């Protein structure tokens, strides 16, 4: 079992006091997670003792920094169980990873009338890049609809799949509904019609261990900062043969083997897709985050989060007038809700006065809001370091909100 109090001591940010000296209840983990000391101190020590540019220095520091940077690539490879280091590309986040595929693969291989399937619960970062590709190529975007509970209509998905489908790109775990999608099954269905399967694992990466080979994933995107790592760094995983065939996304240093004014020879994978000086400290910090999760162990994380889903659902639905948006059978502790007629913004501000940090709005998923006919929700999103006592604080604070508006 997870020793929750011990784990919490690893995250200095959890000790923050907010307004009126109230202890912080941080329920905005879908936006970004806190970072454990292990991540903070490795990043700190990089800046204190190992600052150097990578891949180009002959001196001690550069070699050390390069080794640490490249060893993170190996950590990511193992974390995802990718077949090769060539398949791990560092980006500035999930958004850039999706844009990379949309730009490089999409513009090269999509023709007018080709179809891309996304879902009704995508984050804008898995919608807009494909709309830009549609502009450029004339491809068509199809959308898997949602059920009332906030699950994907899989029958409808199978009807959408066809000979024209070239790519299915869906979210693993929804940031606004908490739904965990059956992506292994969906990947099989996509491959059955010859389409590629891309996973937006921005949230999923912290939910469960992912095995890109066993799940047969073609592309996968995630951000370090939602996995207890630094902001400004993320990963694109792609199958080697796909990445080989794709042109570079950006040009610059590091992604070339040789440059003359007449000709350029691109570097081999993964460097072909890593133009310019990367976020060296960020990558190294993300490596520490991965180590942290592996050390804790998935089993404990998963079972604790499961009990938070159960407890949270129970105490929140007991709050009078609370309507949960997103009640999938398989979900993470993300609670999107409405409270009577009270506007989510007002809920957010009043909870903030009680030390409870949540997010309100459309959560970069406007189509989800439209699907349920609502302008916004209040969203409490939990990480494994959150507790049942904190959920009680939220439930009590919500009752106070109701009092204010009575």
């Amino acid at each position, binding site marked *: 079992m997870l020793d929750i109090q011990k784990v919490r001591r690893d995250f200095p940010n959890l000790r923050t006091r907010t307004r009126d000296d109230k202890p912080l209840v941080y329920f905005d983990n879908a936006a970004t997670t806190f970072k454990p000391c292990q991540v903070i101190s490795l990043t700190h020590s990089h800046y204190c003792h190992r600052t150097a540019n990578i891949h180009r220095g002959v001196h001690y520091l550069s070699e050390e920094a390069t080794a640490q940077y490249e060893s993170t690539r190996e950590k990511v490879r193992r974390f995802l169980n990718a077949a090769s280091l060539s398949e791990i590309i560092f980006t500035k986040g999930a958004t850039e990873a999706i844009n990379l595929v949309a730009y490089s693969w999409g513009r090269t291989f999509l023709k007018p009338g080709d179809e891309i399937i996304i879902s009704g619960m995508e984050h804008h970062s898995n919608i807009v890049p494909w709309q830009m590709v549609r502009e450029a190529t004339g491809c068509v975007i199809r959308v898997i609809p949602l059920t009332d509970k906030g699950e994907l209509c899989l029958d409808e998905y199978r009807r959408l799949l066809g000979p024209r489908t070239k790519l299915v790109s869906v979210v693993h775990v929804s940031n606004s509904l908490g739904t965990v999608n059956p992506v292994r099954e969906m990947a099989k269905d996509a491959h059955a019609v010859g389409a590629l399967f891309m996973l937006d694992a921005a949230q999923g990466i912290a939910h469960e261990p992912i095995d890109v080979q066993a799940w047969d994933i073609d592309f996968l995107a995630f951000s370090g900062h939602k996995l207890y790592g630094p902001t400004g760094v993320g990963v694109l995983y792609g199958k080697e043969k796909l990445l080989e065939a794709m042109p570079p996304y950006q040009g610059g240093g590091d992604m070339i083997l040789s440059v003359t004014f007449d000709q350029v020879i691109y570097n081999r994978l993964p460097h072909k897709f890593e133009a310019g000086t990367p976020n060296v400290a960020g990558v190294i910090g993300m490596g520490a985050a991965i180590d942290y999760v592996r050390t804790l162990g998935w089993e404990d994380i998963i079972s604790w989060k499961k009990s938070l889903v159960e407890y949270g659902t129970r105490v929140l639905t007991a709050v009078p007038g609370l309507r949960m948006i997103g009640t999938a059978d398989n979900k993470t502790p993300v609670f999107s809700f409405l409270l009577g007629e009270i506007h*989510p*913004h007002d809920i957010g*501000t*009043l909870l903030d*006065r*009680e030390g409870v940090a949540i997010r309100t709005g*459309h959560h970069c998923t406007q189509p989800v809001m439209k699907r349920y006919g609502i302008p916004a929700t209040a969203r409490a999103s939990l990480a494994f370091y959150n507790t049942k006592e904190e959920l009680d604080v939220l439930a009590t604070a919500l009752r106070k909100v109701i009092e204010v508006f009575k």
Partner: protein
Amino acid sequence: MDNDELYQQVILDHNRHPRNFREISPCSCQAEGYNPLCGDHLNVYVRLSQEGIVEEVAFQGDGCAISKASASMMTAAMQGKTVEEARALCAEFHSLITKELDPGKETHHLGKLTVFSGIWKYPSRVKCAILPWHTLKGALDNKPTVSTE
């Protein structure tokens, strides 16, 4: 939540019973205001007399308590003003909520609207309070749509 500076009784009351919460048809001018960040939107309608006096301002739309109360109080405050005075009041309100105007020290025409004076402490909520005012200004300037971004 005792003594909360943002959710004062006046604001809660206007949220519960917004004044002039309706359409004016036909009206002299109108505009639609939109806050893309939170999806709030409202329509503001204005009826002017032939002499250019604001006879009526009304609004409709969805929004949080802050934006609704701000809109409601605005419609009440505008009645009987000349268009020039109305514009000046919009400017004063803007100065108030961005903390450029100290209602305790400087002369102003804000009346009860000073309940919004503490809102600069909630940066994420300033846009909620200002949206109706931007929208009214849009209507007076013949700009049919207004966005807070």
